[in-house]
Structures are given as C-alpha cells and as structure tokens.
C-alpha cells in the first residue's frame, strides 16, 4: 500500500503535483496554444485592415508563400544564413570548449568571460559589428587596409558578402552557448580513457576522434538543433545591422515576415510564411536527430545474434 504524505494545505502529493501541472498548462494554453491557433486561422484567411474583413481562402496563402519568388529567395537566404552560422558556431564553440577544458591558471575567470558575447543583447552585438565593419573608420579596414590585405574604404557589408558577415556576427554571439554545452559534455569523459588511449599509441587526433567525439555526439546534436533553430528565427541582429539590405540581399525569412505583417499588413501571408519557417526548422532538427542517433552496424549484428552467456 502506498501512503501519501499530507501537505499542510491538505493536498496529497499527487494532488499537489496535478495542481502545479494544471497551472503551468493553463499558462501555456493562454500564451502559446491560443496564439498558435489564431495564427493558423489567420494563415487561412485573407484579411483587410481597412475594411476590417476576413475571407476564408483555404491554403491559398500557403501556396502563395511557397511559389512566390520573393519568399523562395528569402527562404534560400535563411538556409544560407543558417548553414554558415551552424558551421562557424560549431567550430568556434567546440574549439573554445576544448581549450577551456584544459587546466591552466585563471581558467574559471575565462570560463565566465567567454559567456559574455552570448549575454549581450543582439542589438548591442549588431552595433558593435557594424562599427567594426564600417568602411571609413571601422576596425577591420583600419587594421587590414594598411597591411594591404583589403582596399581602403572596403565595403564589407556589400551585396555579395553582407549575409556572410551577418552569419559571422551571429556565430560570435551564439558560440558561447555551444561552448557551455560542449564543456559540460567534455567534463563527463573519464580521464583514464585518455590515459588508456595514450598508452595504446593513439595520437592527439586519434584521441579526439576515438575518445572525445563519441562522448560529445549528443552535445553536438543539441548544439546543431539550437543553432539551426536560432538562426532560422533570427531577426534582431539582422534587422539592426542591415534591415535586410543592401536592397533585399540580407532579407531572410523572418525579415520578410516582419514586412508582410507590419509594413503591408498582410497578416495571413505572414502567418503562413511563419508556419513554413517552423516546418523547415523542424525537418532539419529531425534530420539531425535521425542522422546522429543512427545505430552503428556492429550493434545491429549483436542484437540479431543470440550470444551464449559466459559463465562467470
């Protein structure tokens, strides 16, 4: 028989748990579920702000989003932005984590400092990078032009490279988060494994490949998903740095949604584009998950062949 402890308020443990869960659930319904359904409803209706009318149009707006060149271009730009950001943040954050996992003086201070780029607001990050990339008096040209590496007055945020530099700034901002995931994973690796590998003649690269990497693969998965989703829903930094310009060269999907919504008052179009954004991010996240957790062939053999039990 299970006896439940009585709480001071007269609730048993399960009642208390239920009360808390229901509270949180209600909160979620109000701030997430209701807006989500409203947004879905909007994506199925053509609305007119002036006439205050809304006509049901089915999935017409979804089709418009999918087949319109403007949204297709924005989607491709989002994919490019996400791809560059994923590669950069992954490499930077793993590199920083590997360094911070070594023992050296003032490691604790550095571990705290490294989190700063993530802690500062995206608008501040944008301002900082805009200043650094400024053609006439910015840091990059100030250092690189005298060395002859770039021309004087080089425009970094030009039509061809603006999106790339946005990804760099975004990776700089997001990498510390990945560093902390990796650092946590690295600290779970037993030191004896590295010692064993050293005695087994494994060099630095082999030790990374055979000991470190298998241990942090789930951290890699988490960082991949987080960075991808963050990159797809990124708005603040891009809006503050280029507002989608020059022209529309850095107009990634969230910026286009913003324009549909707040400049053209096309709420239905904005909603359907948002759903497509969510769907792309979800597909990518699931793809990562499937790829990373795929079973190795050796394990499948073991599962299918019944091994005789060893007498101990």
């Amino acid at each position, binding site marked *: 028989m299970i006896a439940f402890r009585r709480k001071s308020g007269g609730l048993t443990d399960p009642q208390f748990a239920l009360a808390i869960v229901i509270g949180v659930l209600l909160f979620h319904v109000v701030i997430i579920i209701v807006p989500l359904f409203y947004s879905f409803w909007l994506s199925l209706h053509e609305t007119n702000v002036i006439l205050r009318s809304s006509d049901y149009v089915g999935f017409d707006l979804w089709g418009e989003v999918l087949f319109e060149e403007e949204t297709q271009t924005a989607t491709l730009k989002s994919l490019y932005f996400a791809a560059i950001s994923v590669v950069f943040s992954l490499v930077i954050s793993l590199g920083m984590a590997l360094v911070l996992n070594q023992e050296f003086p003032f490691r604790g201070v550095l571990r705290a400092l490294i989190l700063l780029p993530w802690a500062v607001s995206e608008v501040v990050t944008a301002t900082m990078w805009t200043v650094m990339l400024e053609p006439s008096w910015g840091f990059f040209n100030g250092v690189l032009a005298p060395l002859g590496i770039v021309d004087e007055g080089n425009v970094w945020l030009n039509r061809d490279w603006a999106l790339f530099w946005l990804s760099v700034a975004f990776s700089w901002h997001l990498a510390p988060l990945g560093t902390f995931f990796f650092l946590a994973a690295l600290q779970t690796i037993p030191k004896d494994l590295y010692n064993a590998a050293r005695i*087994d003649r494994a060099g630095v690269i082999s030790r990374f490949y055979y000991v470190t990497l298998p241990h942090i693969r789930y951290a890699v998965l988490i960082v991949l998903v987080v960075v991808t989703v963050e990159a797809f829903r990124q708005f603040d930094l891009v809006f503050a740095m280029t507002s989608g310009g020059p022209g529309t060269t850095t107009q990634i999907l969230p910026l286009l949604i913003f324009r549909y919504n707040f400049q053209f008052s096309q709420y239905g179009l904005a909603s359907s584009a948002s759903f497509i954004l969510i769907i792309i991010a979800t597909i990518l996240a699931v793809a990562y998950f499937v790829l990373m957790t795929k079973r190795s062939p050796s394990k499948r053999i073991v599962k299918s062949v019944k*091994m005789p039990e060893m007498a101990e």
Partner: protein
Amino acid sequence: MATVTIENITKNFGETLAVDDVSFHIEDGEFVVLLGPSGCGKTTTLNMIAGLEKPSSGNISIGGKRVENVPPDKRNIAMVFQSIALYPHMSVYQNIGFPLRMARVPKAEMAERVQSAANLLRIGELLQRKPHELSGGQRQRVALGRSVVRDPAVFLFDEPLSSLDAKLRVEMRVELKKLHERLGATFVYVTHDQVEAMTMADRVFVMDLGGLLQIGSPDDIYRLPTNMMVAGFLGNPGMNLVAGRLNGGGDGLHFEGSGMAFDLPSQFSSVATPGDPVTLGIRPESVVVGDGPNGASVTGNIFATEPVGSDLYLDILFVEENDGMRLFKVRARPELKVQAGEQVLLNLPYDKLYLFDNAGYRIYPG
C-alpha cells in the same frame, strides 16, 4: 620482457609531496605488488613508470633504457586501469584491437591476435558486444585482453579488481596469477588490498606517505615487518599493538603496558635497555585463549564477539582510555563459548611476540 629500475624518484604536485625519494629494482618476469593505503603514492609511482606522470626528479629505466623522456606509447608497456577504461562506443573486438590499429598492424594479423588474446581470456564469444552489454568480470577480461594483445614487456595494473564484487575478485586473482605464469612478463600491480598482495606477488613493496617502507616476499613482510605501520597494515585484522615500557629488575625484563604487565624471558634482554618506551606486538591468530606454557598471561574483558564462520574474533578491552578504546583482537576457535562482558584469560606466547622501538621500528625479533 624487461626489468624496471627506479632511482631516487620524487614527485611533487604543487606543495604536496606525493612520492619521496623512492628507489627499487624489479626483475624481468617478476610479479611485484605496490601495497599501501590510499594516498601513499603507489598510483603516482605506477603512473610515472607508465609515463602518464613525469617525475620531479630521479631516473626510471625499463629494460635497462632510461625512459623519463619517452612517451607512454613508446615504453613497450600496457596498463589496466581501476576504472577499466574501455572505449564505450567500440565493440569488444575493436577495444582489444585498438592498440594494434593505432600501430597500423595489418587487418589479418590484427584479427588473429585479437582472437588469440580473447581466447586466452575466455571472451572469444563476446567480440561483437559493446562494453555496456558485459558483466563486470567480462569487462575486466576485455581490459586485460587489450593489454595482452600488444605483447608488452611490462604490464601495469592500477587496482584493477577494486570495482569487482568480492567473489569475482577472488576468481580474477587466480586468473591474473595464471596469466602471469603463462606470459612470463613483468607485472607491476598497485593495490591497497593486502590479500591481493599476499596471494599474487613474488615480492611486495609496502608504501606509505610517499615512501617505501619495506620490500620483501609476502611471507617476509608478514612475519618480519620492519615497522609498526607494516605490522598493522598487513593481516586481517592487523597486528595488535600495545604501547608500554620495559622495566628492568635484577631477574630480567618486565613489560608494563596499558592494562597489562608481565615478565619477559632472557632472550628479550639484549634488544632493549630497561626504561625504554616500546610497543608490544602480537598477531590475533597467535594469541591463545586460556592458559599455556612459555607465554605471558593476561586478563581482559570481552567487549564484543565477531563470529565469521570459520573463526571467532574476540575484541578484548584491557583498559578504557580517554582517547577512545583500543581493542585487542584475538582469533579463537568458532566453538568457543564466550559472551561479551565476560572476563577472559589469554596467553601471549613469547616466540610470537614483537617489540617495536619508540620510532616504530622492529627491535624483536632482531
């Protein structure tokens, strides 16, 4: 096959002195156990032989060659760790074959060597399994296999059995001993478990506080411990030690300790001067319950009894001291009918007594 020689090695970790001027020589093919309580510097010594730690000063030679600046992978050694340290994502085959793979041994030769190592350790059926699908004893065998497959000159073991349960530990002890006989390689084995040391070693090196206390065969260190630490550490329970003083009269020596006093025969007169503080030692199995010839008679109170089946241990209290109770252990026959609280007469045979001087060194038997 190789000898291992260590000369005056010292290791500091910052302010802490982990190993303090230790020297020893291990013969080719010898099974040596470094024995001591945790923190005595035995694992650090092993890690220095392995090359995982660099000595602060001193020389290390393996097979007659100086190796202080040789990386672990070039020392022709293999090591089994306390945590077993199998690569968790690799199969048993891949784990055992890993050192060969790193040495770029051809696939066919690797398969052959892995199979023969696995057969030697009776895990030939488990090659496709992952470490998490194995029992503790099987994992231990895989770790051994990973060392055996390289055919190293020296095997290093860092408390490899401490993660196993008691029954399995006894079995693995025998297997390790057999493995040593079959391979004929040099084994250096670190443990805090004196039973492992006594059962497996050709020679035991007893360490404490970073220093080497005694080197000897298991029998030697048990029968002739150089000092009180070795005497108390070896044996289960360890030697009884009673602090006291030798007083001399015209007719011989007289021992006076906490709660006991008796005369000592003439053979003790040469070892100590009357008036010296000494510690008397006797092993629990040497004490006779009741009266007997050629021994000192003492009386104590039974504080508790500990039946363990094969034997009955008596915890005797001679005197209650302010700094806590010092229990005197006696191994008695299990049939003995005694109860806690009773008074008991004990005989301490003179030829089983030890005397240690004020610094803790053995002075009798000399």
